[in-house]
């Protein structure tokens, strides 16, 4: 058993030596300009939610987040604020919890319900139950935002990355990446910064 384990590990290392793991993960997901697939995921209210359910939406702020990551928790109020500001303008927040609750019990559906209720989430908080949506999008961490624009061709990825440039202090933020992206889309102009990076918690598989 141990030999098999070592052998498979070796095979894995040899297989990966051509690329780094990070590269594979990033290359596998959506890039700005790609058409994002719809999904059907369980919401905290027990109903299934798809992007297509939002007939009047002009786009979506798809946000991978969770209960347990301190960065995600630090951004909760700002995610709520995004939905309050942009849902009525046609860009609702769609929050997706990508972690495996067996590995991260604090992210179970029960705990998600509690959190959504306590914080008064105005947006769906969906569980990526089979963990198939986050790899397709290329989300690697929480929080990780994908701004989509609804077009005749489908939902086009217009922005990937962080919410803003200060995870510690909302009042010290200099650049609001997501707001700038959605504002630009609403005005019909180019998104100023299409991709940003931030530290986040690895998605638990």
């Amino acid at each position, binding site marked *: 058993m141990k030999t098999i384990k070592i052998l498979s590990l070796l095979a894995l290392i040899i297989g990966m030596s051509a690329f780094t793991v990070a590269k594979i993960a990033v290359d596998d997901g959506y890039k700005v300009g790609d058409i994002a697939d719809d999904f059907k995921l369980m919401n905290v209210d027990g109903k299934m939610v798809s992007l297509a359910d939002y007939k009047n939406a002009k786009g979506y702020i798809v946000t991978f987040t969770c209960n347990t990551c301190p960065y995600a928790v630090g951004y909760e109020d700002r995610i709520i604020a995004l939905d309050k500001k942009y849902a009525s303008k046609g860009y609702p927040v769609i929050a997706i919890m990508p972690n495996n609750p067996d590995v991260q019990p604090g992210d179970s559906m029960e705990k998600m319900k509690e959190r959504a209720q306590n914080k008064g989430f105005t947006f769906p908080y969906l569980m990526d139950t089979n963990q198939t949506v986050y790899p397709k999008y290329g989300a*690697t961490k929480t929080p990780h935002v994908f701004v989509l624009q609804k077009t005749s061709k489908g939902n086009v990825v217009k922005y990937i990355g962080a919410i803003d440039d200060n995870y510690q*202090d909302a009042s010290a933020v200099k650049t609001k990446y997501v707001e700038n992206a959605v504002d630009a889309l609403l005005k019909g102009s180019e998104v100023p910064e299409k991709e940003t990076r931030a530290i986040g918690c*690895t998605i638990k598989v």
Partner: protein
Amino acid sequence: MKILKLLFVVSLLVSCNSNKKNEEVSQKVEDVNTTVSVSTDLEVYDFDGFEKYLTKNDGKTYVVNFWATWCAPCVKELPYFEKLNQEYKNKNVEVLLVSLDFPHLYDTKLKPFIAENKLQSKVVALNDVDMNTWIPKVNEDWSGSIPATVIYRNDESKFYEQSFTYESLENELKQFVK
């Protein structure tokens, strides 16, 4: 010895803010029977200050691991980095543990964690909120999830946005230490 220990606890008390937290910290420190050799001084850098740790050019191999106490997979692999540091320190290898913990938790979380786990590798804290600027400077391919690790010697460098076992970590190091 006892006096030194007392002094250590007192210095901890002075350096912390809330009373309740102070008690927790000193209690934890007492529990593990920490000696005075455990430093409570934490080097904290913004990225400009930290960058020197990624650009040394002295023939030594550096294993730089980005982690945080709140990151479960990071904490899980820390012993492997500690073991690597121990086993390879005579082979011109140095492990550096770069904490991305929240600054307001340095005293209540990070320092007690370092003491409790008796971390022998050098630990520094990186506190720079403008992550979109500094993450690509560490590596173009880094999306920002942790754990993440850089192994480098002089101009030769590899980046890993992944978790390690001791074996896989040692295998990577062996490409640098011949």
